[in-house]
């Protein structure tokens, strides 16, 4: 039972990343990003003390808030429509994401044994899953908002992996700055696109 409970955050994090990869509705994406960052906390907590583990989800919430406020300012937040039929593109991205996760699951024991023997397999699955979904996101779309989300997903996966390998306050400070700057860059792109559409 406890094993199932410990795995719930992993699947929720990956599900949120898959939603961001698949769906193209800004409100849903922001909710998924929030879920992704919140449920990273128990995973980070398994390798870091409480006060340090809080940094990543807190930064993630700040990032989401920056993006949310920007979208509100350009009128990008619309009522969520859940009953929209999925497009072929969405089905393709969802299947591609799932395929990547299944492949990762099958390669995981080898990867853990050969490259990351000190990283627990659940932790490695969550981090590599986020990295792969982030990469897929970067490769399948050129809209700046989704590129920002793709980079954020990729980086959060990498941070999760790196916490299990090494920890440094300086590196953490730099990575927090990168995440916040990335959100600002994402906001900058959203505003630019909105401006160019109105002119």
């Amino acid at each position, binding site marked *: 039972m406890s094993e199932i409970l410990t795995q719930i955050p992993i699947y929720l994090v990956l599900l949120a990343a898959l939603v961001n990869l698949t769906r193209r509705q800004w409100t849903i994406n922001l909710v998924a990003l929030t879920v992704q960052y919140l449920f990273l906390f128990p995973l980070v907590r398994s390798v870091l003390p409480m006060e340090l583990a809080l940094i990543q989800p807190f930064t993630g919430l700040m990032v989401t808030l920056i993006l949310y406020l920007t979208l509100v300012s350009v009128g990008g937040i619309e009522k969520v429509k859940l009953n929209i039929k999925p497009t072929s593109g969405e089905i393709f991205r969802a299947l591609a994401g799932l395929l990547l996760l299944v492949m990762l699951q099958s390669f995981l024991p080898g990867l853990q044994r050969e490259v990351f023997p000190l990283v627990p397999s659940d932790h490695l699955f969550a981090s590599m899953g986020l990295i792969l979904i982030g990469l897929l996101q970067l490769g399948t779309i050129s809209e700046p908002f989704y*590129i920002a989300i793709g980079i954020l997903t990729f980086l959060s996966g990498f941070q999760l992996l790196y916490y299990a390998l090494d920890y440094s306050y*300086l590196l953490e400070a730099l990575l927090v700055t990168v995440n916040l*700057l990335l959100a600002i*860059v994402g906001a900058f792109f959203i505003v630019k696109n909105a401006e160019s559409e109105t002119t």
Partner: protein
Amino acid sequence: MSNTVVIWIGLPIALSFLLVSLQKYQKITAVLATIIPLILAGLAVLFSNDLVLSIAGRQFFLEDSLVLFGRTIQITAGQLGMVSVLYLVCFAWNAFSRLFIVSQWFNSLSLLITALWVSVQFINPFIYSAVVIELIALTSVPLLSPRGTPAKNGIIRFLSMQTLALPLILVSGWMVTGIETSPSAQALVLRGAILVLIGFILWVGIFPLHSWLPMLAEESHPWTISFLLVLMQVGLALFFLKFLNQYGWLRNLPELDTFLKWIGALCILSAGVIAAFQSNLNRMLGYFFLAETGYLAFSMAFRGSGGLEVLTMTLFPRILAHWALAVSLASMQRITRSETLTFEVLKGIIRRYPFASVLLLASILNLIGMPLFSLYPTKHIVWKLISTDNLPLSLLSAVGVLGMLTMFLRLFSTMINPGNQNHQTGSEESNVEEIGLIIMVVVILMVIILPGLFPNVLSRPVQELLISFENLT
């Protein structure tokens, strides 16, 4: 305040934020952003022998390290030469920034970006600098993608590539920890080397992952993009040398030099062949950077046969060559009032703007490495090294140089051919070259030709630049 890290990293970062707040006063920010790096470069030269300064019988001592979040950032006297080079680049681009229509953030952010590139060279452990490079990429976004236009593919690709490189470098650092004490770990050495090299390939934009270079050069103002790429090229070259200096396992890897030589040849070949078919000068700027990366790779590969001396000798001439090309492209853009310099726009332009055209042609000849120009002596040495080392590599490089020459001849033919007469009488163009521009052209031509005749002029001051890389020199 009496600390090298505070003076050359902390202070300029603080001043750049001050300049951001003074954004409304463009002239003031431009003047300050010109003076500040000049002073910092001057101070770096002044303290480069010893961190003690005696003035009127009083002595000022500078500490050389600062502890930040438990890690040390250290800039010793011997490393201040590198600092001065980076701030001179910042000075050179800010000094002329008012002549061209660049982003309003250029002055403040250029100072910030230079300070960050300085910090990249001196953070310990140096592997963490990978995150600072990502910060630089993110800070560059407002300069590369001005407001009012949607974000284009070049900037998106640039950001993606810079981000992908970050984990590769960081993981390589973790993977090879303690490898020096276990020489049998050959598999780990190979993995670490592959991660480091792919990280650098993504950062610099080496063929076939170079597509963001010409795209970004096309989307951005030549003045801005050339500044960012010059700093990036110099900064990453020094950073790679740091890797080689610190990691004996990487330095002594038998395949490394062969790999660097092939990378060099591939860069020169791809840049030359693709440039030969281009008809957009802005994109060519990207290909020139690609070719120069190739020459840098060759210099590092031949480090046992004087390649590093070539690298230091070529440092200032290369910066000046890119600066001259940026001046000529930005001037052309200004006088033709055109956002992109296609061959169509440049038809017959030599008849209307002879001085600006001659500067453009001379800058391109300089970058190709033609005799009489400043880059010729060092390129001649690299070509000689390649030809005595490996025939296929010499042939590939020669094809690349021929491609660049073909591009030059196509451009020259376009510029002298009157073609579409509309451009001669176009009301949007100012049809007379200003006297200021003419004087500037003459001075820049002298600057890029004289070091070709007297190579020591620019190479002597930087002879000791790489002294801190004790394992390489």
